[in-house]
């Protein structure tokens, strides 16, 4: 065996991932050399980067089954090298990153337009730094590198969010995002600080070995929940999502919502199940309750939105809620009855993360194309685009069905597994939990069902009906790069939906790493066509048979109807009960579609209504539904901070001798204290 084969044999997946990270950074820097060359950056740089994403995803799949590998990079501070580790959990999230970003990057290739606010080269650099930072977050094996990558991720995405920085609202949205990202980072930093247990070693390996008491473990968990929750958008730290997502360019929104939120889920799973030595049952209850609140809150607010990207941002909050419910359920099962049920709940959670990455990216990119071709983000001014943009509309329909949680696509598969896990909760040994947790599943179903409502609104108002504005007649369909990106993500939704047993078999490596149990063998016991929750008698589901059944019935019906009856069709104006002079303004607006939800769930909203008086010559009605938490939590907090800083501001006198006095007093105090 010569040296080159040895080198090749020792070439592990982790090296490939590192290579991709370097490759991405290099691509970003390369883009700077031709900052204004849209053709080069769009048609060469981004497709090449998408190829890198694909390689990353494939490497992730290969790395799932291989034992954990570690690398130490002699970078960073002296005596404080970067530790990297690739285990099954990291590999899973790398697949998510690679799979979703492959579609987003190839879409981005067609997204550049001359005259857009941010210089293309700069955008390419930030975009690739963002990708690389996310990959490093997933790979990091010490708190130091983790925080460096985490901050790089936050900053690069901040600059991407504020790429149209000349608009004041976008600057405000960016500030809010940065603020909450850093509040969260403090929480994460503190949780790492608690976990290293005072011996000053910040590698994850040392944290795994440390012995924390239940109290300190709980403190760590809560800090991590706060810190990662701020990034994921868990109530009450969700306020940045509906501001930042609409502000960012659509591929960036897709990347943030589809992938970056999942890095927070990754962190939560890493800390809770891998780094902490114990998992207490009440953590699960906390996570479950927070998740339920977040999911319901998100979907209710999504229902009343009028901006299509804000709607999707709130829908992301809902999905993060569902994922958090899954984590909570896993914790409850894991703490009470370690067994395959915890693995089932965890598999459902991870599956939903992957699904959300695909369908939410798809829908954000769909809004991107709509935005580009109509210059309109408000749902009240869209409509009827299925006739002008068939590619986008039909691919968007795939995303809509997937996110609404309907069979046979992917959203349903993970939600089905989650509900199956819920169906086992009456068997929990704690009498209160065994009664209350099943009722919680009703809240999850309410959120999922309302998500269906929201998606009918989203799709119906944008793509169906009559165009609400004249200019929509000039809307054009997506270009070829955009189509490829959309098709890739839509295919992902279909494939993930049709092969749940295969996905669960792959997830086994992760669930056995985190909970010590596997579900794949159970899931695939009735053959690859079916997915089985715990036993075939208990429940099974076969999306492929579903699809085949529907398609067969559809064709049979179609052929029979055509064969036995004539196919004559006349066209005429819409009937609408015979009312004449129908205009596009008589359709449901986005506000109208959301109105029932606003009325039924009124206590959850902060509603400002302006009613016309009976004598108004020009009557106007205005109803605004706002976030109650904004008024109950954020504004008082902001006022408090302002008051405190006013008080501190008293110290700031602007004269040099007073500042010298301060230094002198500080010195004296320090001397007294350290004496």
């Amino acid at each position, binding site marked *: 065996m010569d040296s080159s084969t040895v080198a090749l044999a020792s070439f592990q997946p982790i090296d490939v991932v590192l290579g991709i990270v370097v490759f991405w950074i290099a691509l970003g820097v390369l883009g700077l050399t031709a900052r204004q060359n849209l053709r080069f950056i769009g048609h060469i740089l981004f497709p090449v980067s998408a190829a890198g994403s694909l390689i990353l995803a494939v490497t992730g799949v290969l790395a799932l089954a291989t034992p954990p590998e570690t690398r130490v990079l002699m970078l960073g501070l002296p005596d404080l090298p970067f530790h990297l580790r690739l285990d099954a959990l990291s590999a899973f999230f790398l697949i998510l990153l690679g799979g979703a970003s492959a579609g987003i990057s190839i879409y981005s290739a067609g997204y550049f337009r001359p005259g857009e606010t941010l210089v293309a080269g700069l955008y390419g650099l930030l975009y690739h730094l963002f990708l690389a930072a996310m990959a490093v977050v997933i790979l990091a094996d010490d708190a130091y590198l983790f925080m460096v990558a985490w901050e790089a991720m936050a900053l690069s995405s901040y600059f991407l969010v504020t790429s149209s920085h000349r608009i004041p609202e976008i600057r405000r949205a960016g500030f809010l995002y940065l603020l909450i990202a850093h509040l969260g980072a403090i929480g994460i930093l503190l949780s790492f600080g608690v976990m290293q247990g005072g011996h000053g070693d910040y590698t994850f390996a040392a944290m795994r070995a440390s012995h924390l008491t239940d109290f300190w473990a709980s403190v760590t968990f809560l800090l991590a929940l706060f810190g990662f929750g701020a990034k994921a958008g868990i109530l009450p730290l969700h306020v940045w999502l509906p501001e930042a997502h609409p502000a960012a360019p659509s591929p960036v929104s897709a990347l943030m919502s589809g992938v970056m939120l999942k890095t927070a889920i990754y962190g939560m799973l890493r800390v809770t199940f891998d780094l902490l030595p114990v998992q207490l049952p009440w953590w699960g209850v906390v996570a479950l309750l927070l998740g339920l609140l977040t999911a319901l809150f998100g979907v209710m607010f999504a229902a009343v939105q009028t901006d299509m990207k804000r709607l999707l941002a709130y829908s992301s909050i809902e999905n993060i809620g569902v994922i958090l419910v899954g984590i909570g359920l896993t914790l409850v099962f894991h703490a009470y009855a370690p067994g395959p049920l915890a693995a089932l709940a965890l598999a459902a959670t991870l599956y939903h993360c992957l699904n959300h990455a695909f369908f939410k990216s798809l829908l954000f990119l769909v809004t991107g194309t709509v935005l580009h071709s109509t210059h309109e983000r408000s749902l009240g001014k869209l*409509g*009827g685009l299925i006739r002008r943009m068939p590619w986008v509309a039909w691919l968007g329909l795939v995303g809509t*069905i997937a996110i*609404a949680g*309907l*069979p046979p696509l992917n959203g*349903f598969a993970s939600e*089905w597994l989650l*509900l199956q896990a819920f169906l086992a909760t*009456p068997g929990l040994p704690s009498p209160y939990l*065994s*009664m209350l947790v*099943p009722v919680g*599943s*009703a809240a999850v*179903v*309410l959120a*999922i*069902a*309302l998500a*269906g*409502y929201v*998606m*009918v609104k989203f799709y*119906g*108002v944008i793509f*169906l*009906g009559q165009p609400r504005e004249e200019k929509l007649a000039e809307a054009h369909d997506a270009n070829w790069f955009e189509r490829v990106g959309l098709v890739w993500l839509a295919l992902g939704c279909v494939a993930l939906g049709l092969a749940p047993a295969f996905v669960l078999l792959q997830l086994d490596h992760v669930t056995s790493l985190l909970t010590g149990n596997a579900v794949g063998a159970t899931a695939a016991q009735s053959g690859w066509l*079916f997915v089985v929750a715990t036993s075939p008698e*208990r*429940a*099974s*589901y076969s999306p492929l*048979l*579903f699809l085949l*059944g*529907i*398609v067969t*019935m*559809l064709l049979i*019906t179609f052929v029979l*109807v055509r064969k036995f*009856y*004539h196919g*004559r*069709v*006349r*066209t005429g104006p*819409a*009937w*609408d*009960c015979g009312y004449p002079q*129908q205009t596009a303004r008589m*359709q*449901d607006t986005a506000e109208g*579609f959301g109105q*029932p*939800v606003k*009325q*039924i769930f009124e206590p959850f909203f902060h509603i400002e209504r302006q009613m016309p008086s009976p004598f108004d010559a020009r009557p106007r009605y205005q109803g605004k539904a706002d976030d109650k938490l904004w008024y109950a939590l954020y504004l008082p907090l902001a006022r408090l901070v302002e008051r405190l800083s006013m008080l501190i501001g008293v110290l700031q006198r602007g004269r040099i001798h007073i500042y010298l006095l301060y230094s002198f007093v500080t010195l004296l105090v320090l001397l007294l204290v350290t004496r």
Partner: protein
Amino acid sequence: MTSSIFSQLFQTLLVVLLAPLLLGWVNQCRAWLQNKSGAGVLQPYRVLHKLFHKDAVLAENASSLFRTAPYVQFACMVLVASIVPMVATDLPFAAAADVIALVGLFALARLFAALAGMDVGTAFGSMGARREMLVASLAEPALLMILFTPSLIAQSTSLTTIVEVLAHHRFVLYPSLAFAAVAFAMVALAENARIPIDNPATHLELTMIHEAMILEYSARHLALIEWASAIKLANYSAVGIALFLPWGIAAAGDWQAIPFALAALLLKLLLGGAALALLETLSAKMRIFRAPEFLGTAFLLAVLGMLARLLLER
């Protein structure tokens, strides 16, 4: 295997062909209760025949989604009919979906109906779509809670297993199932667009829900939708029977029991249809914003049923 495929085909065809009869029976009963002579139980077939022979009139701006949706709805309902055990439990296709997946299949059909309702872009179409989705999303949590109780008893969400456990094991009376059954009846009324949530006979513009959504359809498309909603009623009845009154459904391979099972099914459907007609005659349609209260009551009953199961029956 061939026998079970035969029973699969037999049951599916039976439901698809006889579903309009159930609808006709309900309408006839209601006519009798209202002192009318009625159009006869075969009237739905005449309507379908008439609709299939007419020329379809499409709105000028209808997209291809509008023309596809009726076929999707029909296909979904036929698929459900091939999964719910009605006559015998040996259905090879039943393993493809448990009862939660069935709810998903109903929801898929509804999504297409709602999207098609919004497609032409008329005031009533989008109003109907919005209301239908609203009622459905409020009904679904209640439906899940209802399904919890029988699936706790049978330790399964597969309908065939539930039927096997309830009908073919030791006979036990479960009080929890009574709560769940009442709640199921309420949810089924809402999901099938019946009084008191919706009125299938109305064309009063502002009270319509389901009818408003399909206002723009005509001829064969409308026929498929009407047929699909007849099958949906039959399917919902069959799910109710499987969960709460499964006695009589033949066990797998028990060929002698089939005629008896058919008779039992017919009897249950006749009685159920008459009860539905009675209920619709006695009650009035409620305002749309009363629907949350109605469905909330169903939800509470279902939770009571589940708690009764957990507290009393162990």
